[in-house]
C-alpha cells in the first residue's frame, strides 16, 4: 500500500474551495428555482388563473401608465372606495390595491410593483393599515414570496398544462371593479362615542412608521404625491389616532385627509344607520358611494387630475362602467349572495 504524496491543501485554500462550492451549489439551486418559477407562475391575472391577491393585482391588465391615482390599504380601502364610481363622476382613473388585514409592509411591496407599469400622480394610504399589528415574520414571508415564485405558486403543480411550459404570461383580464370590494349588507353603527374630541396622540408602531417613511420616499422617487386618508369608521378610529396621523403627516410633509372629522365628514355625509356594513368597521356600498363621490371631486377639482372620458385610449373604462353598474344592481338586489368572502367579479 502506498501513501499519497500529494500535499494537503492549506487551510485558506480549503476554505476558498468550500466557499466556491457553496456559492456554486446555491447558484445552481437559484437557477432551478427561477426556471421552475417560470413554469409555475400563473399565465393570466385572474383568480381562476391562480394569481394570488388577484383583486389587488388586477391593475396588471391595465394599459401602462393609464392610472392616475392608487389607493393602498387593507379591507377599509377596498370596501370604502370605488374607482368605477370615481370614473363615472369625473373620468379620473384610479385603482384600489389592498388586501384584507394586511400590514403596511405589504402596501410597500404593492406600490413598488404598481410603479413598474403605472405612473400615478397621487398615492393614497388608508390609515387603518398603520395601526394593524406588525409582524417581522410577515415581512420575511413577503420577502420569500417575492423572491421565490416557485414557493408562492408551488401548489400549481397539480394544474399544470402544456401552456405553462411553453406559453408566455398574458395579463388580459380587465377587472370591472378595479380592486374595489363592495359590500351590500347593513348593520348600523353606534356612533354615540365616535370621534369625541381629545388631545391624546396615538402614533403608529415604530416598524409601521419605518415602512410609512419608505412609502413616502418611494412616492417622491417616482414623482407622485403621497396622501394619508382615513375613511369613515367608528370602531377603531378616534381622535388620538387622528392626532397621531396629523402629526406624522406634518413630520413627513405629506397630505392627510380625515373623513371622520369636519369639514370633510360633513361633506361626505355618512349616515351610520344606513351606510355601515358591520357596525362601523366597514362601509357598505351606500357609504362607499358617498366616500367615492367626495374623492372624485377631490381628485378632479382639488388635484386637477384629467378627465379621460371621450379619450379612445380609455374606451375600455366606459364598457367597464356599464358592467360595473349592472353588477351593483345585482348587489343591491341580492345583498346576501354578493356579501361573502372571496367573491368578486371581473
Amino acid at each position, binding site marked *: 500500500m502506498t501513501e499519497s504524496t500529494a500535499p494537503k491543501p492549506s487551510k485558506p485554500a480549503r476554505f476558498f474551495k468550500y466557499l466556491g462550492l457553496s456559492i456554486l451549489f446555491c447558484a445552481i439551486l437559484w437557477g*432551478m428555482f427561477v426556471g*421552475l418559477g417560470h413554469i409555475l407562475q400563473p399565465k393570466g391575472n385572474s383568480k381562476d388563473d391562480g394569481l394570488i391577491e388577484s383583486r389587488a393585482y388586477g391593475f396588471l391588465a391595465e394599459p401602462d401608465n393609464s392610472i392616475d391615482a392608487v389607493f393602498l390599504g387593507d379591507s377599509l380601502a377596498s370596501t370604502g372606495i370605488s374607482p368605477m364610481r370615481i370614473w363615472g363622476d369625473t373620468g379620473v382613473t384610479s385603482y384600489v390595491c389592498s388586501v*384584507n388585514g394586511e400590514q403596511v409592509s405589504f402596501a410597500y411591496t404593492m406600490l413598488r410593483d404598481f410603479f413598474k407599469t403605472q405612473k400615478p400622480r397621487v398615492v393614497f394610504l388608508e390609515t387603518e393599515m398603520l395601526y394593524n399589528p406588525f409582524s417581522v415574520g410577515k415581512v*420575511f*414571508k413577503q420577502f*420569500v414570496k417575492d423572491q421565490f415564485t416557485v414557493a408562492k405558486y*408551488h401548489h400549481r*403543480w397539480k394544474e399544470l398544462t402544456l401552456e405553462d411550459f411553453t406559453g408566455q404570461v398574458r395579463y388580459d383580464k380587465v377587472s370591472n371593479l378595479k380592486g374595489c370590494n363592495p359590500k351590500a349588507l347593513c348593520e348600523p353603527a353606534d356612533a354615540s362615542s365616535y370621534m369625541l374630541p381629545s388631545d391624546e396622540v396615538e402614533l403608529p408602531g415604530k416598524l409601521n412608521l419605518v415602512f410609512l417613511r419608505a412609502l413616502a420616499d418611494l412616492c417622491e422617487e417616482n414623482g407622485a404625491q403621497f396622501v394619508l386618508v382615513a375613511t369613515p369608521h367608528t370602531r377603531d378610529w378616534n381622535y388620538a389616532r387622528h392626532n397621531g396621523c396629523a402629526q406624522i403627516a406634518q413630520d413627513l410633509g405629506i397630505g392627510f385627509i380625515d373623513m371622520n372629522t369636519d369639514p370633510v365628514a360633513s361633506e361626505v355625509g355618512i349616515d351610520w344607520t344606513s351606510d355601515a356594513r358591520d357596525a362601523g368597521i366597514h362601509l357598505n356600498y351606500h357609504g362607499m358611494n358617498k366616500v367615492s363621490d367626495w374623492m372624485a371631486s377631490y381628485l378632479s377639482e382639488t388635484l386637477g387630475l384629467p378627465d379621460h372620458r371621450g379619450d379612445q385610449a380609455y374606451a375600455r373604462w366606459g364598457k367597464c362602467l356599464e358592467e360595473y353598474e349592472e353588477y351593483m344592481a345585482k348587489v343591491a338586489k341580492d345583498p346576501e349572495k354578493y356579501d361573502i*368572502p372571496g367573491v368578486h367579479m371581473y
Partner: protein
Amino acid sequence: MDFSLHSYFSILYIVAFLPIVLVAYQVVAQRLRWAVLLVASYAFFWAISSKLIVFILISTVSVYLAGRKMGALFSERDAFIAQDKTRKKELKKLYQKKARLVCGLGVGFNLLLLACLKYLVFFGEVTGSLLALFGLNVPVAVPYIGVPIGISFYTLMAASYLFDIYRGTIAPDTNLGRIALFLSFFPQIMEGPICRYGQTAEQLWAGTPINKDNLYRGSVRILWGFAKKMIVADRLNLVVKPIFADYTSYDGGVVAAAAVLYTLQLYCDFSGCMDVALGTARIFGIALPENFRHPFFSRTASEFWLRWHITLGSWLRDYIFYPLSLSAPMKSLTKAARHRIGNRYGPLLAGSVTLFCVWFANGLWHGAGSQYIFFGLYYFVIILLGGLVEPLAQSVCAKLHINREGTAWRTFQWLRTLVVVFVGELFFRAEGMDAGLYMFGQLVGNFTFESFTNGAFMAIGLTFPSVTTEVVGLCLQDYAAVAAMVVIMTIVAVVEERGCCITERLAHKNLAVRWVVLYALIIAIVIFGSYGVGTAPLDPIYAQF
C-alpha cells in the same frame, strides 16, 4: 409555511436559527462550543415556552444536586470500606439504601413537577368526576400554569441520569453546564429521542468541529425529515382533521381510511421530526439514538414497539419493567402463581402485573386523557393475549401443517399487526374515549365503501373562511404525491432493513450524485410540500406530549 420559531419545520428555524448556531459553533474555540449549544438550546426553549424555562432550570439543578449527593455517598462508602473491609457488605447495603433515598427524592421531585404541570388539570377533572359519583358536586379548581416544551422527554432523561448513577452505570457529573446541555439540547428537546447521559453527554461536550461529511449526511437526513413531514403529514391533515373533528358524520369505511391515514401521518410527522433532530445533531458530530426502525415491517405488536419510539420503549423496559420484575414482591408473586396455576401460566400471570405497569405508564406518558391511558392498556391486552394464545396457536398450526416461517403465515402476521396498529392509533387520535368508541363502533358495525364510490370521501376537507367559501380537501394529485412518497419510503426501508445505510452510501458517491440528491429533495419539498394558503400544516404531534 411557518414563519415563527416554534418548531423545527418553521422557515425561521431552518434559514436563520440553525445557520446562525452552526456558524457560531464553528467559529468559537472548541472548548467553548458546548456553551454555544447551551445558549442556543435555552434560546430555542425560551422562544417556545418563554418563562416556563424556569422549570427546566429547576429540573437541571435538582438532578445535579441529587447526583452530586449520591456521588458523595458512594465516595464516603468507598472510604469506609477501604478502612474496614470486613464491613464491606454491610456498608454497601447501608449506603445503597441512602443513595436510593436520594435517587427517589430526585426522581420523585421531577415526576412531581411533571405531574403538576401536565397532569394536574386532568387529575382535578377525574377527582371532580369521582366526587360527583358520591353525590358531591364540589368544583375542583386546578390552576393551569402551562406546559414547558419537551417536559415529558427531559423529565425521563433526568430520571434516567439519576437511576444510572444509583446503579453505578455512570459517575455523577460535577459540571452543571454539561447536565444542562444534556437535558436541553435543542434538536431533541421537542420530541426526543429520550437519550441516556452515557449516550450523549460527552459528545455534546466534545465540541467536534463541523466537517463536510457530517454536514452532508446531516443535511440529507434533515431534508428527508422535511419531505416526510411536509409532503405527507401536513397534506393528510386536510382530510384527517375534519374526519376526527366531525366523526359522527362518517361511515365505517371513512373511519377505516382515517385510521390508516392518521397512522401514516403520525409516522411521517414523528419520524420526520426525528430525522431533523438526528440530522441536526449529526452536523455537530453528535450521534443521537435512533427512535424508529421501520415499524410497519413488524409481525407482532411487541415487535412494533421495538421499532416505534424505541427510546421510550427502552426507557420503560430499563427503568420500570426490569426493576419491577426483579423486585422482591414480584418474585414472591411469581413463586406463588407457579405454585397455584402451574409453570406455564403462573409466570405469565405474575408478569402481566409488571406489563400492566409498563403499558399504563406508556399511556399516561402520552398525555393526560382517558384515550391515552386506553391506548396504553390496549397494547397491554394485545400483548398479554398474544402470550396466552401463543401455545394454542403453535399447536393449531402444527395440526394444520402451517409453516410458521412461510411467506403466507408471515404475511398474515404482518397484516394482523397492521390492523392492531391502525385500531390503536384510531383511539389515540380520537377526540376522547367516547369518540374513539363511537368510531370503532362505526368501523365494525357500519363498514361500507359507499363514501368512496359516491364521491363523499373526496369531498372531505377544511374551510378557510377568509379565503374561500368552498371546502378545501385533497384531490387525486394530492393522494398521488402521498402514494409516491410511501413508495419511496418503502424502498428506502427495504434497503435499510437489508443492512445498507443510504446516507452513508451517498456520502461516498461523487460530488455530482451527492448534489443531485440534495437538489431532488429540496425541489420535492418546495414543490410538493403542503404549505401556503388553503393548507393546514400540522403542529408536531409529539411536541404536545
